[in-house]
């Protein structure tokens, strides 16, 4: 097969369907990545228009441009859109598009999950935008503090849109995080060991792990607040044993790492682009990786620095003040590594480099004001003022938007296959840079002069008029600059001015693809021997196109790739991906049905939607696998590896493991909330404890132990060529026993509306019942698969996944039993 025939064959296999169906059924990472990016930049436009409206309102004193109610929607939606619908999805889109290309493979680990995540984002974001159009958008600020957002003070549907819409969108982030983690660890080109990974992949891996740990507390908080609003469960009502500070803890447990979740991928883009612009390698690769890891983990110890004015004891303040100053060190390590890289190289002042310089100037100022607000007495003075608004924009615009604009210009030729023609970008950069500084630098001063955040108007006598007018003018200059970027990107897509291959002379693998990148990425997969394969072997693209790498000969309609060992990158498994399907969009719409039913209080629809999701999930998994034992598969270069259906640790196992990490953080946050209320909230201990039940105390642990042991036996028997059915049935009985026990527990638990104690126990009980039913569904599914002939001693991969879920069920059963009954027994 020659290169052209191979290209045509692979294009037919990997492309989306022609016409409109292609948009809704594609699972190809390049398509979905671009859909993410296009949607995210649309939301950026909406968020930007809201910013203009805010600046129009504040340009003059006593402005009558918008009333306080509408103005509250402006700033709430501006923050919400920029954080949840723009920043995170841009990262997701960029990583979805780039990662497989940079890692030298053909797609991410779970292509259908990628598409499902996108549609959840699309529908969830759409919910919020619709609320904006109808004037019922969230209006409680982007961090939604109760009691303001409780039912008493915010009786309308506005807050519900935020809680439900954002939770829906966060499904997308969790999907992407699982996807990225498994993809970076397991889906790489053979030979790409951890130390040969492109630096961008390291940053995305770190960020994905942060999302898995950072988002669950907010998801929990949103669920608890919605339960309070919808059903009167008083988690945040002080009079009934709740505490509004619990929301602040849960929100900022997410919210502070969120800043780094946004910054780190942008830093990854800089660490990739800057060395290319300087025609050299990144200085201190190992130090930069260590700094990214340190920054990620340290960022989880800072959440209370957003709560310095809530009356926390001095020592608590000192802990978080110290931690807040500490993060400056890994950040500085990265900044100095970038400066050093420029020093040792020969920098070219191309357009991406201009944006990187804009980043340096702006982000360093934001970092320094960050150290200022980390100092408690200073924070007390400027808390909730425009100074903090200026600081956060210097960090987020400087640390995210400038790098992303650099990334847009850097990778645009890869996406479009064309080079810039009209040269609007340089003017756009000047407008953006100057406009930004004019808008936000004076905001520090007006903040120090006492202007509060979120105020809808002010008096001329306050003395803030000139500064606000300057800020507003700057804001519109900034908007013109960003509009020019948008215009240039559109022109780049429209005007046919072909770019040469690898126009920046980069060394990473994404530039080894055709331009624009084809649906299959690489005609054959490379073997990687260094961090910059294209610098070491400039002929690599040609040899890959000739099929001289791995999997160079397409087999039937198979979408094939290779799974590798985490550390060494040695080939381990052979993968056949599922093809294009409408399942992701249908499942996302059904998931949306659940959220929508809760939003409009059609509660009877919610269980129907959940059932629909369960059925679709079964169809989703049923389509995988085979009824025949696969032999070892040849992947080229004389190497044979087993198919993923015939291994003990298939990609699904890894995905489940990382999903359970997020799940465990969710559960841990719930336990934290319980302990927090118990310790801090008034009216604790509760008026009455749950009465010990012999049935619950017996059936739950016994059921869990039976399920764990029987499932393990089923796996062992199957591997030995014996029947797994008895073990699976016993495990099913055990999980149903746990579900029954906690069903009884829910019946006997104290009223969930009378006190936060009862409400928390109710959530604990429902959590265990849901996990027991999920485990039962998995076991029933495995029994059906076994009966249908999909499972054998060789095809054992499917059986490997259920035990970790059942093990998790056992752990939470034990912990919830102890948390529910121990306080009553001790007291």
């Amino acid at each position, binding site marked *: 097969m020659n290169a052209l025939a191979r290209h045509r064959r692979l294009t037919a296999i990997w492309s989306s369907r022609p016409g409109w169906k292609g948009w809704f059924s594609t699972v190809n990472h390049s398509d979905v990545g671009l859909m993410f990016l296009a949607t995210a930049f649309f939301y950026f436009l909406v968020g930007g228009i809201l910013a203009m409206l805010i600046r129009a309102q504040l340009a003059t004193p006593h402005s009558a441009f918008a009333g306080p109610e509408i103005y509250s929607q402006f700033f709430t939606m501006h923050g919400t859109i920029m954080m949840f619908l723009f920043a995170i999805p841009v990262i997701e889109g960029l990583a979805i598009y780039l990662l497989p290309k940079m890692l030298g493979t053909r797609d991410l680990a779970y292509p259908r999950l990628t598409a499902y995540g996108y549609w959840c984002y699309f529908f969830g974001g759409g919910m919020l935008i619709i609320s904006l159009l109808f004037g019922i958008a969230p209006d409680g600020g982007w961090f939604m503090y109760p009691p303001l957002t409780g039912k008493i003070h915010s009786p309308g549907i506005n807050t519900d849109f935020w809680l439900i819409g954002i939770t829906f969108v966060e499904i997308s982030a969790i999907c992407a995080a699982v996807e990225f983690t498994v993809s970076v660890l397991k889906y790489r080109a053979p030979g790409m060991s951890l130390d040969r990974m492109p630096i961008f992949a390291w940053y995305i891996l770190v960020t994905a792990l942060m999302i898995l740990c950072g988002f669950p507390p907010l998801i929990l908080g949103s669920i608890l607040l919605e339960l309070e609003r919808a059903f009167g469960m008083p988690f945040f009502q002080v009079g009934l044993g709740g505490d509004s500070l619990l929301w602040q803890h849960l929100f900022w447990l997410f919210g502070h790492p969120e800043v780094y979740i946004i910054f780190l991928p942008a830093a990854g883009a800089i660490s990739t682009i800057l060395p290319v612009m300087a025609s050299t390698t990144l200085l201190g690769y190992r130090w930069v990786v260590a700094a990214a890891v340190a920054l990620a983990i340290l960022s989880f110890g800072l959440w209370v620095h957003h709560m310095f004015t809530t009356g926390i004891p001095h020592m608590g303040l000192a802990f978080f003040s110290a931690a807040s100053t500490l993060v400056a060190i890994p950040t500085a390590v990265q900044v100095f590594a970038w400066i050093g890289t420029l020093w040792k190289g020969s920098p070219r002042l191309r357009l991406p480099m201009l944006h990187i310089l804009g980043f340096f100037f702006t982000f360093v100022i934001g970092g320094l004001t960050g150290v200022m607000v980390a100092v408690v007495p200073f924070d007390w003075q400027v808390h909730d003022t425009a100074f903090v608004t200026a600081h956060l924009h210097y960090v987020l615009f400087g640390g995210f938007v400038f790098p992303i604009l650099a990334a847009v210009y850097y990778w645009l030729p890869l996406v479009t296959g064309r080079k810039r023609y009209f040269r609007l970008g340089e003017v756009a950069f000047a407008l953006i840079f100057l406009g930004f500084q004019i808008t936000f630098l004076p905001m520090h001063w007006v903040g120090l002069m006492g202007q509060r955040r979120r105020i809808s108007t002010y008096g001329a006598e306050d003395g803030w008029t000139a500064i606000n007018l300057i800020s507003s003018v700057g804001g519109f200059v900034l908007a013109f600059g960003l509009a020019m970027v948008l215009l240039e990107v559109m022109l780049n897509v429209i005007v046919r001015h072909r770019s040469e291959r690898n126009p920046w002379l980069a060394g990473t693998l994404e530039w080894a693809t055709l331009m624009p990148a084809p649906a299959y990425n690489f005609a054959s997969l490379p073997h990687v021997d260094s961090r910059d394969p294209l610098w070491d072997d400039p002929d690599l693209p040609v040899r890959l196109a000739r099929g001289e790498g791995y999997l160079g000969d397409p087999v039937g309609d198979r979408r094939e790739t290779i799974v590798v060992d*985490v550390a060494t990158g040695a080939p381990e498994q052979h993968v056949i991906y599922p093809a294009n399907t409408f399942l992701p969009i249908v499942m996302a719409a059904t998931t949306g049905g659940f959220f929508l039913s809760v939003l409009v209080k059609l509660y009877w629809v919610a269980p129907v939607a959940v059932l629909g999701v369960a059925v679709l999930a079964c169809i989703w998994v049923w389509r995988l696998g085979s009824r025949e034992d696969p032999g070892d598969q040849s992947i080229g270069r004389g190497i044979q590896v087993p198919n993923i259906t015939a291994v003990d640790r298939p990609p699904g196992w890894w995905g489940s493991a990382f999903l359970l990490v997020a799940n465990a953080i969710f559960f841990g946050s719930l336990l934290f909330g319980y302990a927090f209320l118990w310790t801090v909230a008034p009216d604790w201990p509760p008026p009455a404890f749950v009465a010990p039940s012999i049935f619950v105390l017996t059936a739950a642990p016994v059921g869990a132990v039976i399920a764990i042991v029987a499932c393990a036996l089923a796996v062992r028997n199957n591997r030995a060529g014996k029947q797994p059915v008895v073990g699976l049935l016993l495990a099913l009985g055990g999980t149903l026993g746990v579900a029954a026990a906690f069903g009884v527990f829910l019946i006997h638990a104290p009223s969930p509306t009378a006190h936060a104690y009862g409400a928390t126990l109710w959530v604990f009980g429902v959590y265990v019942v849901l996990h027991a039913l999920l485990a039962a569904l998995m076991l029933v599914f495995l029994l059906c698969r076994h009966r249908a002939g999909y499972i054998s001693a060789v095809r054992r991969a499917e059986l490997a996944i259920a035990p970790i879920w059942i093990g998790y069920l056992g752990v939470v059963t034990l912990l919830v039993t102890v948390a529910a009954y121990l306080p009553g027994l001790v007291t």
Partner: protein
Amino acid sequence: MTDLLRILISPVVWLAAFSAVYGLHGVLCEISIDGTGYSRAWARPMLVGAFALALLVQMGLLALLYSTSFQARPGFARTVSRTSGWVGLVATIWTLFPTLAVTACG
């Protein structure tokens, strides 16, 4: 995965220790305010004890990362894991030092 574990272990243990000490501080201060349990005088020794324990654990981890039995292979993983080991130790000293110096429940 073992290399990743080596890289992550010290900072993750710092995070666990930091959160635990903060939680302990909350509990001790709450008990002190209620006056139902330990007196306020117990708060600082317990917090300092927790700080010392966290330090010992971090030093133990760092020793492990330098030991022949647990250290990573020479090169990337060894450098990064030892660096993050030092990060864990320094972060513990810097962020939990207030247990020695600041009013416990003021």
